[in-house]
C-alpha cells in the first residue's frame, strides 16, 4: 500500500513501488486526463506537477512521488479557470487535444516559476512537450496571453 497526495487528497494505492506514476494515476485512480504518449520522457503528454515542478509521470516511480504533492490536470483548478486554461480557450489552442493536458501543466509550472517569460524562455521550456497536430503557435500565444492577463 502506497500513500499519495493527489490534487490535495490523501489516497492509498495498491501498486508495486516501481510502477510508473502514470499508470497509477490513470488506471488505479481513474485520473485519465494525464495521457500516455511515449512512456520514455520524450513527449510530455504525461506531465504532472510534483511539488509544483513539471514532471514526466511515465518516468516517475510511484514510490518516489509518495512524499510530494501531486497535481494533475484535474486538480489544476476547480473549474477550468486557471489562467492558463482560460488562455488556452481564448486562443482556441487544442486540436485533437491529446497532448494538451501535458502542455497546460508544463505551461502552468513555467508561469508559476517565471510569471513573465520571454519568447525564448517559453520555447525552451515547452520543447519538452510534443504536439503532433501542430498547435505550437497557439501554445506560445496562449502562454503569452496568460502571462499578460494574470
Amino acid at each position: 500500500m502506497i500513500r499519495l497526495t493527489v490534487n490535495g487528497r490523501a489516497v492509498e494505492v495498491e501498486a508495486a513501488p516501481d510502477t510508473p506514476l502514470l499508470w497509477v494515476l490513470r488506471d488505479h485512480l481513474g485520473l485519465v486526463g494525464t495521457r500516455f504518449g511515449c512512456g520514455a520522457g520524450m513527449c510530455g503528454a504525461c506531465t504532472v506537477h510534483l511539488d509544483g515542478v513539471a514532471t514526466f509521470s511515465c518516468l516517475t516511480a510511484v514510490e518516489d512521488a509518495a512524499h510530494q504533492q501531486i497535481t494533475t490536470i484535474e486538480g489544476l483548478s476547480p473549474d477550468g479557470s486557471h489562467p492558463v486554461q482560460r488562455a488556452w480557450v481564448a486562443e482556441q489552442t487544442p486540436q485533437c487535444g491529446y497532448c494538451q493536458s501535458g502542455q497546460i501543466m508544463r505551461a502552468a509550472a513555467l508561469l508559476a516559476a517565471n510569471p513573465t517569460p520571454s519568447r525564448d524562455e517559453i520555447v525552451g521550456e515547452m520543447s519538452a512537450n510534443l504536439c503532433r497536430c501542430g498547435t505550437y503557435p497557439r501554445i506560445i500565444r496562449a502562454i503569452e496571453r496568460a502571462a499578460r492577463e494574470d
Partner: protein
Amino acid sequence: MTVTIHPSRRRFLAGAGGLAFAVLSGGGISVLRPSAQAATSTEPGVPVDAWVTIFPDDRVIIRYGAAEMGQGVSTSLPLIVAEELDADWDRVTVEQVSQDPQRLFGNPAFGGNLFSAGSTSLEGYFTALRIAGATARRVLIHTAAAAWGLPVDEVSTEPGVVVHEASGRRLRFGEIVALEEIRTDVLQVFEDDLKPREAWRLIGSGVGRRDIPGKTRGEAIYSIDVRVDGMVYAAQLLAPVEGEAPTVDNDADALSVPGVIAVVPLANSIGVVADTFEAALAGRDRLRVSWSTGSDFRSADSADELAQLAQAADDFSTEPVTWEARGDAAGALSAEGRRTVTAHYTTEHVYHAQMEPLNAVASVDHDGKGADVWVGSQSQTISLAVASHVLDTTPDRIRFHAMQMGGAFGRRTVFARDLLRDALLLSKTVGRPVKLIWTREDDVKNGWLRPATVHRLDAVLDETGRLEALRHRVASPSIMQFAFPNRWDPESRRDLLVMEGTESADYAIPNLLAEQVLVDRRSRVSAWRGIGWAPNCFARECFLDELADAAGSDPVSFRRDLLRDSPRGLEVLNKVVKMSGFGNPPEGRAHGLAFAGYKATLGAGVAEVSVTEGRLRVHRFWAAVDPGIVVHPLSYVGQVEGGIIFGLSSLLGERSTFTDGMIEQNNFYDYEILRIDAVPEIEVALVESGSPPSGGGEIGVPMTGGAVANAVRRLTGTQPRRMPFDLGDA
C-alpha cells in the same frame, strides 16, 4: 437551383417530447416525435436516426457523422445545420454518430459510408447539412404560421424563435415543437429556403470550438481512457516481421507475474492479459516465443527499396500505369532538337506518430456473438464491419462507440483490421472487457508508412521559355492495393493515394503525362496527412523552380504564366507573394515559393530560411489558402497551421528505415517529430472565392516541401532532392 427533398417517411412515433429530423442518404427527410424506446443516443428520447432534435425546453441536439480527430468537425458540421435552422447556438448540443444502420449519416463523398479522411467532410456534407437545417426551419415556420393563422411569408426567424414582426408575435422553437399540429407536408426545400450568404450568423463566425473547454480540463475521453466494469488490460508481443506467426516456448514466467491472467496466442502476436497494464507489460517481457521464419518480408530493407525505386523511375522497359494524359507529352519529349530538362526527387518512408498510441476496448458478450466496442476510428463503417466479421455475427449485435481520436492523420482508417480484431479475440477468450494498448514502440515498429517514392520529371520548354510538356513519373508501391484491396482495381491499377496531385490540374500545361511505375511494397503502407499530394507537389514545385531558371524566368512569373487559366490559383499565388514580400528576405536568408492545390482547396506558400553550418532553419512561413467558403475559420486556420508544421516536420527530419523486415526506430528519441523550438512564425491568409467549401486538413502539407527546398537552393545553390533533406552537401 431547386433543392427537392422527397419525404420518405412521415410516420410519427408516439410519445412525448419534441421533433426529430432525419435526412436519408437519398436526400429524403423524416420528421419524428422522439420515442423513449428508439434511443441509442446518449440523450433519452432521441431516435438514432435524428440529425436534428428540438425539445420543448428549446434544447437542440445536432448529430454529426464525421469522426473528430482534432480537425474540428464536431463544431463545423453542426454549425452548418444550426445556421440554416437559425438555431440559438448556445442551446445546441452536438453529438457523434457511432452507428448508422440505415445509412443516414454517411459522407456523400465516400459513398455514404461513415469515413473521415482526405479532408472531405466539409465538402461532402455541406449541402446535405444545409438542407437538413433548412427543412427543420421550414417545418417550424409553417407550423407557427398555421398556429397563428397567418400567411407563411409574413413570418421569419431569429435565433431560436419564429417571429411575426408586424404583430410582435413570437414562438420559441421549443414552444412550436410542443404544438399539437405539426406541418410535415412542407418538407420540400427550395433554393430560397436556404439563407443567403449575407444572412449567415454562424458560418464564418468566430464561435469557439465545442470540444475545446473539455480538452483544457483533461475531460476529453479517448478510447484509451475508457473504463468498463470488470475491464482488464492487454499488451501484445507483435511479430517482429510482417507475416510471421508465434510459437510460445514458455509462458510460465509471464503467468507468474502477479496480476497476469492469460497468455493468448493470436495470428501474428501473443496477447498478455492482466489486471493492470503494468502487469501485462511485465508479463510480456517474460514471454519466450519463437517466430516462424518464412515471411517474404524478412529480407525487406528500406535502402534497397529506395535503390530499386530509383532504378524503376528510369526504367522505361516496364509498362507504367497512366494516371493522367493531356496532349502528347511523350511525343514532345522525344522530338528532335527540343530543349528538355530532367530531374529526380526522392521521399523516404514516414510514420504517422499520432499522439495517442493505437488502442481499443472490446467487451464481447457471453455468447461470443455480440460486443461493445470503443475505438477511435476514421471510419465507423469499416470498424463495425471488422467487428461483425471477427465475431461472425450481424452488425446489429455490435454496439459501436465511436471515440474522438488523439490524432489520426490516415493511421486510423483500416488499422482496425488487426488491432480491433485482436482486442475482440482477447475479450472473447478471457470472457471480460479488455483494453488493448500498443506502447509507442509497438506503434512505431508496426507503423503503416507513407511509402518511399522516387520521382522523375522531364520537361520541354518552347523557344519562349514556356512549359510545353511535362512528364511526372512516380515509382512507388501501391497504397490502394495494400490498404484498400476492395477498392483496388487490378485492371486499371490506378492508385489515387499515391498519384493524386500529379495531374497538376491548375497549371496550363498543354502536354502532360503523369504515370506510376509500380514496385512491390516492402513495408506496410498507408495514406499519410497530405496523401500523395505532399511528395508529388514537393517534386513538381522544386522542378518548376529549376525550369524557371532554365527558362530565364523567375519563380513567380513562371508560375503566374502556368496559372493563366486558374483565377483562383493566381489569387492565392499573388496573395502569398504580397504577404511575404517575396524575394526580399533579410540578409542571410532566402525565400522559396510553392503553389499547391489539394483537390478543390488551393494554396501557395512561402518559406524564409537560413542555413548555418549545414543547419537549416525555417524562420517564417506564409500561406494563402482558398477554401472556397470557410465554415469555421478558427478550426480551418488551425488545420492549415498544423499541416504546415506536419509538412516541415517531415522534410526536416522524419524517416522510418527498416532492415531484415524490421523498422529500426523505436520511440520519439529516434523518430523525431518537430518540436516547438523549430517552428517558424506562421501566417495564414484565407482567400475565400465563394466556391463550395473544401477541406483544410491537408493543404498545409504539400506546399512546405517545395517552398523550403526552393529557398535552400536560392541560398546555397544546391537543390535538395530528397525528403527529409540532407544538407550535408548544401
